[in-house]
């Protein structure tokens, strides 16, 4: 079966140890986690995990069911890129003198829509948001011209394009099941 990048979104209670329970399900199937991002969700007390992995449709469906089965996982979903608006953020640290010698800073900033977060005598820190190819593109171009001292890219964050707000519907139906 064809492998592609899937984005798994997991909503959970904010309890200790859930990340481990999720990752061991990937480990058992020898799936590499490409990116991982965890944060509190819009709903108080509910955490959101966004995980990307390369696999096939059959496997990802089984993985998500097994994640869903864990106690305190409220709901998990998987999507492909077409269903999502997604973003990553990358930071680049460059020596100030090298940066100034580039000579084409304005062009570079316009081309990549860069923000400069910090600039001092020793270093400049650039920020770029975008898809993987875009943040990587800036890294590659900078690397050709100068030495990037540090480079960091975040895990993916993603929002679905669909009209249905699955989590709120899910929570409402869960509350219906609560015994009176």
């Amino acid at each position, binding site marked *: 079966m064809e492998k592609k990048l899937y984005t798994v979104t997991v909503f959970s209670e904010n309890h200790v140890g859930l990340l481990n329970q999720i990752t061991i399900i990937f480990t058992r199937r020898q799936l590499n986690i490409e990116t991982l991002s965890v944060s509190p969700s819009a709903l108080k007390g509910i955490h959101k995990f966004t995980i990307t992995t390369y696999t096939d449709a059959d496997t990802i469906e089984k993985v998500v069911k097994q994640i869903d089965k864990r106690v305190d996982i*409220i709901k998990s979903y998987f999507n492909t890129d077409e269903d999502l608006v997604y973003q990553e953020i990358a930071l680049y640290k460059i020596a100030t003198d090298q940066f100034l010698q580039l000579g084409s800073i304005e062009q570079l900033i316009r081309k990549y829509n860069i923000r400069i977060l910090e600039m001092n005598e020793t270093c400049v820190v650039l920020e770029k948001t975008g898809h993987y190819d875009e943040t990587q593109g800036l890294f590659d171009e900078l690397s050709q011209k100068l030495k990037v001292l540090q480079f960091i890219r975040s895990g993916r964050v993603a929002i679905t394009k669909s009209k249905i707000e699955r989590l709120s519907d899910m929570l409402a139906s869960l509350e219906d*099941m609560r015994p009176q």
Partner: protein
Amino acid sequence: MSNKIKGSEALIKSLLAEGVDTIFGYPGGAIIPTFDALYDYQDKINYILTRHEQGATHSAQGYARVSGKVGVCIVTSGPAATNAITGIGDAMMDSTPMVVIAGQVGSSLLGTDAFQEIDVVGITQPITKWSYQIRSAEEIPSAVARAFYIARSGRPGPVVLDFAKNAQTELVDFKYEKCKFTRGYIPSMPIKQKHIDDAASIINNAKKPLALVGQGVILSNAEKELLSFLEKADIPAASTLLGLSAMPSDFRLNKGFIGMHGNIAPNMKTNECDVLIAIGMRFDDRVTGKLDTYAKQAKVIHIDIDPSEIGKNVAVTAKILGDAKAALCALTEKTEPATHTEWINSFDDFDKLEFDKVIEKELYPKSGDITMGEVVRKVSEATNNNAVLVTDVGQNQMMSARYFRFSQTRSVVTSGGLGTMGFGIPAAIGAKVGAPERTVCMFAGDGGFQMTIQELGTIMQSNIGVKMIVMNNNYLGMVRQWQELFYDKRYSSTPMINPDFNQIADAYRIANRHVSRREDLDDAIAEMLKDDKPFLLVVEVEEQGLVYPMTPAGDTVTNILY
């Protein structure tokens, strides 16, 4: 005036609130306060001291499997917790409700590699339904309530509570409230009428339906509903290893046992039926063989409570998500009465083939050494096919599954998924404690018997009336069988030089007998069953015995050696 009690006592009161009256376990440093509290509740809780923590877990499993209640273990930290891992993993694989409470070092020492500290939650997360560390006494009632709710509901399974020592000694106001709901865990979805309608329409159009019965039927107490469904639609059925005893052995539509060493007819018919109805089973590889060739001609209907099992191994045409009892009730209502006489009779040729090629010489040998099959069948018949069967793992297990007969449900305690050698003796202890009015017969080989042989001490101390039958072939028989068939008869590490098992039983003051001649067998079995006391029957069986029929691992289900 404060009503505060110690955490250890709060734990015991919480267990009592969950209806616990039996605990298996072993004390140690980090759990002493809890054992101290237990001392005051000996009139309410039967505490059985095992000889090893693995034994405690298997006993709790045996107890749970026959009684339907949650098995409970209390052990200490570190090595005790790691000793319990095999039983916890076994309970996870076989969906057995169990709560294991393990002591843990005090909260202030956590993470410091303290004496007998081990990361119990980290180790057990992959093999439990839920694993939780209790760090303060306030958490005890809610953690215990949640543990029991999770262990026994939905698809049952093991829960571990890692109980820090300070939480046992702190004082707490005790107030207990049972858990009835937790947002992140829905045990069972309500049955969807559309699922029922779709499945019923497939069944109503079936010409050659076959049902596969798993432990889910027993776990949801759906035995009656199963028989009504099968009878109404006239559907032949066969059991998985753990589904055995859900249908009486002599039930008209019971076509036996499926899987690697199952009966020829239901395995062959799996690839001939037009509709395959799987009820509370999970299409384990020991049932399906090669998936690419498994039941490809059939429309598959899968009834299961666990959504992650649907489509995991076998693609389904229709599913019914939910509890087997509710599903079968609803399905029977929508199923039209039918007769499939010709189809059902078509099983007979294979049954005759199996009898002629395998069963006759296994059960009724005229000469030669005693066979495992004849021992199992004779014991079964001597109990009027009414005993609880407990097995170890290997040839003894498959022979028992094939030849023991059942007249009531919850009569099989065996390690199916994990295949744990050494399961037999401690599981039999738990089974007898869980069903004291029943005869419990445990079959083991010489290998598995020695893996947990120390539990004879538990039998002696607590006077547990289990009937143990060791079928001794002086080999690790199942491995020997594979070596004979697939490894050019290179018997690597399978011959066993054994101790005198009868002398060991003598040392434990357990009545025992040794049989090596066929003519002594009936009398020895009668002696074993004459009272309700523990007994060890050692039977010397043929060394070269093979469990047939056999579908080689990973082969097509119909590719059967016999």
